[in-house]
């Protein structure tokens, strides 16, 4: 009997050990990898170390855009629903204090907390002060369904200042407009990764191995923009907008020797931190268009600088030539009127430019001929992208040289029928101001990076040798003629006694659509502009002012030139323009 019992116990023990052994074999040999990975997945966290987006700075190092770390709050709705069931509470009871702390609408929070999903983002881009308050609330109430994570905020300290140039980033910090978009690769950097064993509270466990690849931060971008110049042209543009009740105002200030933009403003503008606000898609699209780059307009008489400089370069006109203006000119049977319908009479080349005489300019264009005219139009980069470092650049519309009629040549020569972008016009005046060498307009000066090892690298952007469009002699003669228009003409609204201002005004009728949807020139909507610089002997600054649809006056000399004068006077405080 004892033997029998002994046998049973032995057999049972043997079976037990056999089972255990089999299980051990299964765990340690057969399912080893699967079990190991399951265990690892429970304690190992793969954490992305986000790269810090580079700052955008002005030429003097002032911050125009910068990213700092922030927080986000997510809700685990499965846990939240269990909490509500177990404590017989409602979502509203949690939503009210949450809304108050986060500065959100209570109904929105309720909507999020009662969503069908298992998890939802409650709010992103939260500052530390707010998150500290939230943490206090979580600790006091013992809340377990809210998850605080890391995020980042892109700050634009000057709000709408330079908005069209800077652009903005989306919720994930990727550039979607302006410089932020154009230089996204430079600014964004490369995210790092960290693999570590963590506890329940996501704290790294001791004794565990940490594998880490550091993030490479984005480069800082230094612009050619001067914050002070930008500040006063922003203020002037705002004043101009109010005074003329204009539809939009565009001002560009640049350094003709480098092609660097010192200031660029388009009004109305937007806040890059929140460009959408409560706008409809249509309103958003309209307000975020950078008129300087994205839109084309008929330049009017300011385009005469291209016609006349080309003619001088080709030697078809000189300062000694005279042109008679009876008030109109017939081209292929089409009557084209001059600004002065009664005629300017006999004029020198300087007078043609000073009087902004259409007839004289058309005569000059006729001497130049369509082929040569078009060659220069192309050389000055009209009808094509100039390559400015901003997205969505327009080419403008110029005539096809093969199908250009004499009337097309005549109207084009005086800045009508063809459209150009403000950037293209700035390139033209900069070429004339830089001894005939075109240095394309640009905004990015250099990208700098201080890497994890502490080494500093600098990359120069937009370095260009320049391209000669007209000779130095032609450029100097052109500057003198343009000086005669403003600096040598005390009746000009841009005239400044001590500063040798040169430039040209323009007034162009806007193209509108009639009742039938056909395009036509408007009789009461104009674009008034001024293009020029100072001082003409050694240009240090060039200016473009465009007032779109002013209500109180229309002529460039009355509407745009006074603002250009203000800009040059202000610039004289920083640069010696006398």
């Amino acid at each position, binding site marked *: 009997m004892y033997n029998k019992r002994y046998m049973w116990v032995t057999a049972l023990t043997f079976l037990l050990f056999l089972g255990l052994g089999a299980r051990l074999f299964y765990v340690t040999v057969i399912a080893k990898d699967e079990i190991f990975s399951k265990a690892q997945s429970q304690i190992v966290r793969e954490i992305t170390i986000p790269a810090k987006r580079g700052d955008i700075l002005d030429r003097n190092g*002032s*911050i125009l855009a*910068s990213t*700092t*770390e*922030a927080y986000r709050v997510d809700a685990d709705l499965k846990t939240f629903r269990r909490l509500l069931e177990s404590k017989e509470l409602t979502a509203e009871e949690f939503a009210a204090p949450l809304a108050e702390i986060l500065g959100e609408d209570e109904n929105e929070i309720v909507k999020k907390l009662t969503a069908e999903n298992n998890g939802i983002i409650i709010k992103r881009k939260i*500052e*530390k*002060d707010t998150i500290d308050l939230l943490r206090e609330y979580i600790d006091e109430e013992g809340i377990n369904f809210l998850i605080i994570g890391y995020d980042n*905020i892109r*700050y634009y*300290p*000057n*709000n709408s*200042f330079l908005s069209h140039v800077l652009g903005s980033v989306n919720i994930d910090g990727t550039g979607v407009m302006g410089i932020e978009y154009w230089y996204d690769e430079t600014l964004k950097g490369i995210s790092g990764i960290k693999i570590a064993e963590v506890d329940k509270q996501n*704290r*790294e*466990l*001791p*004794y565990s191995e940490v594998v880490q690849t550091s993030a490479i931060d984005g480069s800082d971008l230094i612009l050619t923009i001067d*914050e*002070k110049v930008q*500040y006063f042209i922003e203020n002037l543009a705002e004043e101009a907008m109010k005074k003329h009740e204009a539809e939009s105002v565009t001002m560009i200030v640049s350094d003709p020797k480098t092609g660097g933009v010192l200031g660029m403003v388009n009004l109305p503008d937007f806040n890059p931190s929140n460009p959408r606000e409560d706008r409809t898609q249509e309103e958003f699209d309209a307000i975020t268009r950078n008129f300087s780059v994205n839109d084309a307009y008929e330049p009017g008489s300011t385009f005469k600088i291209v016609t006349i400089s080309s003619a001088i370069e080709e030697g078809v006109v000189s300062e000694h030539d005279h042109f008679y203006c009876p008030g109109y000119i017939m081209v292929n049977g089409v009557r084209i009127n001059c600004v002065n319908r009664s005629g300017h009479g006999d004029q020198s080349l300087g007078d043609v430019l000073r009087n902004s005489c259409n007839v004289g300019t058309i005569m000059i264009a006729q001497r130049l001929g369509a082929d040569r005219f078009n060659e220069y139009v192309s050389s000055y980069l009209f009808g094509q992208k100039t390559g400015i470092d901003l997205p969505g650049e327009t080419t403008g519309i110029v005539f096809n040289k093969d199908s250009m009629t004499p009337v097309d040549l005549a109207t084009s020569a005086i800045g009508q029928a063809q459209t150009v972008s403000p950037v293209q016009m700035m390139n033209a005046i900069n070429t004339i101001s830089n001894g005939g060498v075109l240095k394309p307009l640009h905004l990015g000066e250099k990208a700098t990076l201080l890497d994890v090892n502490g080494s500093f690298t600098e990359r120069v952007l937009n370095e260009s040798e320049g391209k000669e469009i007209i000779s130095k002699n032609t450029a100097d003669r052109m500057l003198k003629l343009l000086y005669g228009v403003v600096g040598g003409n005390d009746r000009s609204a841009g005239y400044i006694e001590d500063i040798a201002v040169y430039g040209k005004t323009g007034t162009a009728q806007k193209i509108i659509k009639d009742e039938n949807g056909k395009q036509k020139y408007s009789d009461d909507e104009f674009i008034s502009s001024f293009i020029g610089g100072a001082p003409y002997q050694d240009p240090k600054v060039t200016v473009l002012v465009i007032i779109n649809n002013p209500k109180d006056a229309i002529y460039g000399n009355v509407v745009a030139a006074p603002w250009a004068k203000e800009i040059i006077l202000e610039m*004289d*405080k920083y640069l*010696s323009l006398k």
Partner: protein
Amino acid sequence: MALPNRVQYLSTAPNPEIRREKQREQEEERRRLEKSKQDFHRKNAARNNKMKMSAALTIFFMASGLFITIFRSGKIYNMQNEYVQMQNDTRATIKSNEALKAKLIQASSIGDIAEKSIALELVSVDKADYLEVDLTKNNFMETESVQAEPKFTDKIFSMLNLNISN
């Protein structure tokens, strides 16, 4: 049941010599057995003592080893824990710094600075407000000769019209 075969003695009278001899042998045997028993007990006790000692020593060494291992592991664990804690503190400090940086960035608005400057009645600097000096050349007057100030004692002596040196 079969009975055991009995030995059939021819004479049953005992030999006294044989009897004495047998007693002596028995006595010797008893003494020998007693001695061997004592030896056995002594040896056994010695072996037991040795085993107890070695077990105690083993336990002692194992306990010491265990204590050292646990103590060292605990120490390393604490150090790593402290390190992780320090890392967390560093991270918290970095976060505070970032929050501070955000405030600084927000305060660097040129519009706000201009507004505050106006409120403080500050004026912007014009070219007329500063002096341009070329420091690459000598800006001092060449003709001006610099004479040493007379000493106080010299002044007194000169007033008294005394000449010490003479």
